């Protein structure tokens, strides 16, 4: 088309439309959700792997015979500590929802408080995860059961790291440059990520810590 083709054309003027929308009207929200679809598939496959390991090990759980460590005949994972961690995960939803709502309300104080709180929870949970590995009683290279459980916990831990980094970036921006519309959208999208992290953990917790007992 040349310039002449446009002369006298009617126009569809979009100048009065907003430049930031939330949820299913926002491109970023969709991009994040499709990304989470990928990650959900990843966990789905890891769960399938867990069951495959269950099928190939006839004595469940296999006794721990790692050299240098006491032999455990029935090495079920500890439940107390992981359950406490699960509760912390669930409590962390509180600040996340508060942050999400504050971003929608454009409540700058709420946003800043919410950001700091969610990051604090995130860091606490990262530290907890580090100790959670010990409750499995196996190392990743002891057997396939150890490999798959460590991978599940590790994979989820990577998401905790990513979320912490994301939170940190937004905090930096919010405290240095202030909160604009674009970053309000970023916050609501990051909140979806956190909800997803907690939701997947509930399922993975059941599998990893109750699975050995039940399956």
């Amino acid at each position, binding site marked *: 088309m040349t310039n002449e083709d446009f002369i006298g054309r009617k126009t569809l003027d*979009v100048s009065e*439309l907003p430049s930031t929308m939330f949820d299913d009207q926002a491109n970023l929200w969709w991009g994040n959700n499709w990304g989470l679809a990928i990650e959900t598939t990843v966990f789905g496959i890891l769960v399938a792997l867990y069951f495959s390991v269950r099928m190939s090990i006839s004595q469940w759980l296999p006794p721990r015979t790692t050299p240098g460590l006491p032999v455990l005949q029935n090495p079920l994972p500890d439940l107390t500590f992981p359950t406490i961690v699960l509760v912390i995960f669930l409590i962390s939803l509180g600040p996340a929802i508060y942050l999400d709502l504050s971003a929608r309300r454009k409540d700058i104080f709420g946003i800043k408080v919410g950001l700091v709180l969610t990051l604090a929870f995130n860091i606490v949970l990262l530290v907890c995860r580090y100790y959670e590995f010990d409750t499995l009683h196996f190392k990743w290279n002891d057997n396939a059961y150890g*490999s798959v459980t460590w991978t599940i916990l590790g994979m989820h831990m990577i998401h905790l790291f990513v979320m912490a980094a994301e939170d940190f*970036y937004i905090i930096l921006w919010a405290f240095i440059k202030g909160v604009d519309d674009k970053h309000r959208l970023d916050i609501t999208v990051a909140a979806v990520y956190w909800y997803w992290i907690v939701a997947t953990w509930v399922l993975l917790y059941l599998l990893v810590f109750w699975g050995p007992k039940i399956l």
Partner: protein
Amino acid sequence: MKNTDLSKKQSNTLTEARINEELRALESTWSDKPGIIGWLSTTDHKRVGFRMVFTAFCFFTFGGILAGLMRLQLSLPGNNFLGPDMYNQIFTTHGSTMMFLFAVPVMEGMGIYFVPLMIGTRTLAFPRLNILGYYTYLFGGLLLFFGLLLNIGPDAGWFAYVPLSGPEYGIGKRVDLWSQMVSLTEISALIASTNIIVTVMKLRAPGMSLNRIPLFVWSEVITAVMVIFAMPAVMIASSLLSMDRLTNVSTHFFNQAEGGDPIMWQHLFWFFGHPEVYIIFIPATGMVSMIITTFSRRKTFGYTALVLTMVATAFIGFGVWVHHMFVTPLPQLGQSIFTASSMLIVVPNGVQIFCWLATLWLGRWNLKTPLIFILGFFGVFVMGGLTGVMLASLPLDTQLHDTYFVVAHFHYVLIGGAVFPLFGAVYYWFPKFCGRLLNEAAGIAHCILFFIGFELVFFPMHILGLIGMPRRVYTYLPETGWGDLNMLASIGAAVMVVATLIFFINAVYSWFWGKVAAANPWGADTLEWSLPSPIPQYAFQYQPVVQGRHALWEQTADSPVVTGLHINNREVVSTSIHDAVPDHRYGVQGPSIMPFVVSVITGAMFIGFMFTPWSLPLGMIALFFGFLGWFWSNSVEHRPPYAPLEDNPVYDDPADYKPVEAAV
């Protein structure tokens, strides 16, 4: 914005002065930065898409050279041109290249290039992510060939079955090169897919409701959804394999002795591997639909059926993977189910073929090279489909497994189903790349020679397979009687090489000296043809309002165009998912070097993981800073997207451009 508001807003008219002013602003807003940094940091989907297609064709050439070497080796019985080890490396690299580095990226590249243009927008939804995807793909591909050139290429076949590829038998770093290449290219595929889906969902031009989306765009979206659910399987599989192989990690996922399961590798690989076939084939069907419609000069027959068959193929494609594993121990019910589902997939493909035939039957043909390639596609692909039905049958498959019959089958479906349409598409869209047409006579010679060469190479392989020649043997004895047919196949390979050379010479010649093309040289119906050839960086001077399924054919002379977007910021109109009613103005980021930096870190992290697990934490720390830079530059360069028109310096008198209430 409601539909009624939309018609109210179609009121103002454009004046020449305003058009000229806005054009000048658009040109500078959407142009790349100059120099090598500008080249590395471009976010223009056309440049990235073209680079992807170009790089994929380079890998296609390398993969083709490897195929030629294999044909040389097999042309005579007892030949010792290539040793067994070299032969293993070559067939593994050939297969991996053609699947991971050519077929998937080239289809994505075409999507990245044409999807935004076909839906009437100026950019992908996440342009910086897009260039990141290209670099990770490039690094993955270079890694593979780096291995081959150092004589440490992977040698366990393109599906790298354990235990052959595991720590026990897969010596050195050979298989690690393969697994890291896979991880890097799949990251690239996942990035491209997310980008394409969101772009098509949210950035279509106003008026392009779901039932008006061009079929090629549908095919790219459906493929992208398949990628999202298929690619993670192979990414996990290859990561687990590299963890099993890495000395300091030594997990036991595929180690039978410690409760692992080697068969699980096959499940994970083929859960990706079979959908992969459709990930390659479905975009090709989109190309077929576009070319047939244009060159039959009529509306597509069975648009809805064609979309639904693509969706059906995608769904069923996830339920057939076990037919690659018919010779592993399977429960009988499983055997029956996967035989049935493998045969079921013929139904949507058949419907598709008949829709195309009906379009051709009812059309007035414009018999140019793209259409001739599509006719070749019918001949080759249908035959490949039929041998596919044969292989879906378990008793026959047990007999033919790992023979040349299988090699013949998948080359018929992949070259027939994807390469023929792809060549047609290159002839079709070449004017959009460079403003010139490819030479017709050379194109016809290319097509006919390629077809003859193809049949000479691969038809005899059916017979070779039936009389018992296994695949992946570097030589055979004269007494087997396989010599003549192998010689015939090798002669055919030479013909294919000649045909491809004609294409490359034609492409280079036409790029510089070919016939200059008009904006729409074929009289096609989709929006990219409304743009000048070659396409300016801002693509659409004004985003169009779409009035029908065949956008250009159904467009009225005075169809409205979108105005009111920022012309000093990169901004496009974002529309609702179903009806494509404008809902907001979407600002995208300009070029940045950070995606390149992040991709270098990612590449280094994956390559490092071949040697030490510490590359993972170190890589993550580096990525933390890389993404911090990305995030920061994103936020700084992107001006606050909402600014009232009065602040926009291009408008002299903003009052002129306020919408005027008038009936349309």
